[in-house]
């Protein structure tokens, strides 16, 4: 392995069943900003689901979620609504 592909390229090789109708992650922008959870999420998520816009707004690319729950464990109370995708949707590991 000479060079790892970018996270986006890496995730593109994974299998996902995307749920177009339901987003399973929601950020409370005000609490995320006030508590610093926003910046923390951007850094700790291995799938880089979270991004920060120049104005500090946290974006969520829920389609990339690997469903580990790290964000949910680390977010300040009220800053994040996170649950598993609906049955059958989301990441489908082929190796695991």
């Amino acid at each position, binding site marked *: *392995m*000479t060079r*790892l*592909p970018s*996270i986006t390229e*890496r*995730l593109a*090789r*994974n299998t996902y*069943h995307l749920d177009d109708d339901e987003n399973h992650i929601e950020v409370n922008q005000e609490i995320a900003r006030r508590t610093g959870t926003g910046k*923390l999420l951007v*850094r*700790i*998520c*291995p*799938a*880089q689901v979270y991004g920060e816009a120049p104005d500090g707004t946290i974006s969520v690319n829920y389609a990339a979620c*690997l*469903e*580990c*729950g*790290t964000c*949910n*464990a*680390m977010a300040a109370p009220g800053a994040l609504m996170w*649950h*598993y*995708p*609906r*049955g*059958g949707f*989301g*990441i*489908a*590991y*082929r*190796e*695991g």
Partner: protein
Amino acid sequence: MSTDVDFDVIVIGAGIAGMVCAHQLARAGHEVVLIERGQEPGTKNLSGGVLYCRVLEAVFPGFVERAPVERRITRNVLSFLNDTSHLNVDYWDSRLAEPVNAVTVLRAKLDPWMAAECEQAGVMVMPGVRVDALLREGDQVVGVRAGDDELRAHVVVAADGVNSFIAQEAGVRPKEPIKHLAVGVKSVIALPRTTIEDRFRVSGDEGVAYAFVGDCTQSIAGGGFLYTNLDSVSLGVVLRLDDLEAKGLSSADVHDRFLAHPAVEPLIRGGELLEYGCHLTIEDGPAMVAHDLTRPGLVIIGDAAGFTLNTGLTIRGMDLAAASGMAAATAITAALKAGDFSDDGLSGYRAELDRSFVGADLKTYAKAPAFLENPRMYSEYGQLLAEVFHGIYAHDLTPRKHLVPTAMAAVKASRLTLSHLMRDGWAAARAL
């Protein structure tokens, strides 16, 4: 109490714990449904990859021969990794293959096999369904709700993993302190079988498991791992969440830097990335398991209950999951026979655990997590070892010294003191 049930037992989650429990219950003649949110069992499951498999022989006779496991681990390497050096303890022993002690697994391959075994035993496997909530009558758990559907049973088993929303909903587990948790970030990299055999000095279906400490995590508490599969390797880092927060680093960057480390990169050179994944894991199992394990009509097993042990050298979860599933099945069978699904009726679960290696090992390693909190483990000790060996092997034309003064000079040059060494050595002896 209502006896109008759809099944005797509902098991939530087709991981090792849930499948072992469901299998044993069905084999004892009970009506069991196993509900799994993934489209197929295994699609949501990810483990580092080493399964201490002896316990599974009791559930699935001939497990190692019949199950789609990868390699039999006969070589264990503990690697103290520094920025530009490493020191390895390399232990190979043919006795580890006879009987087989540990195997590497890829869960997306193993779990569908185990689910098929469950079906053969009479379990109704129901994939693609997410359980949203428990059904209750007063204090008693009487079933589950999934979307608009309700299913009722005498006993519900929560085997829904480390994030267990069910255990939280039942009020058994509060939000876990983040120092009890760690995130594992892992890549599976394809390599030809012959390359794996040559590069890792293994033959046939034998394999090697590396545990790395030190620079692999850029001094975040945790470690690195590398396991050989049949024609791929699984490798990555495990980062304790409180220290990941404190150190200000990105989990993906730490993973990438580990794979690029000069001691690691040659091991995966030329390989092709098959899959990148992550999973939350438990750093302090003994502390987590201290909570209740049952509620009336509800039993909590596997990761959902906190059954994981990190002893510094071995990281165990799947074997404890299996044993907890077996203990729960025994206790639930007794409860079904007695028709008593109260806390009292299910108390056989804790008793069964305490009788098994699970209860004993959780006690033995109760102090290990506290020992592994010591920050010196993740920085100074690897450096110190490298200094000692540098003093031995680097002949710079100065007069040689005996081993003890060489080691003393290395300690003196480090940020460690003799009192650190004695204190940590004593703590290690007591904890590990």
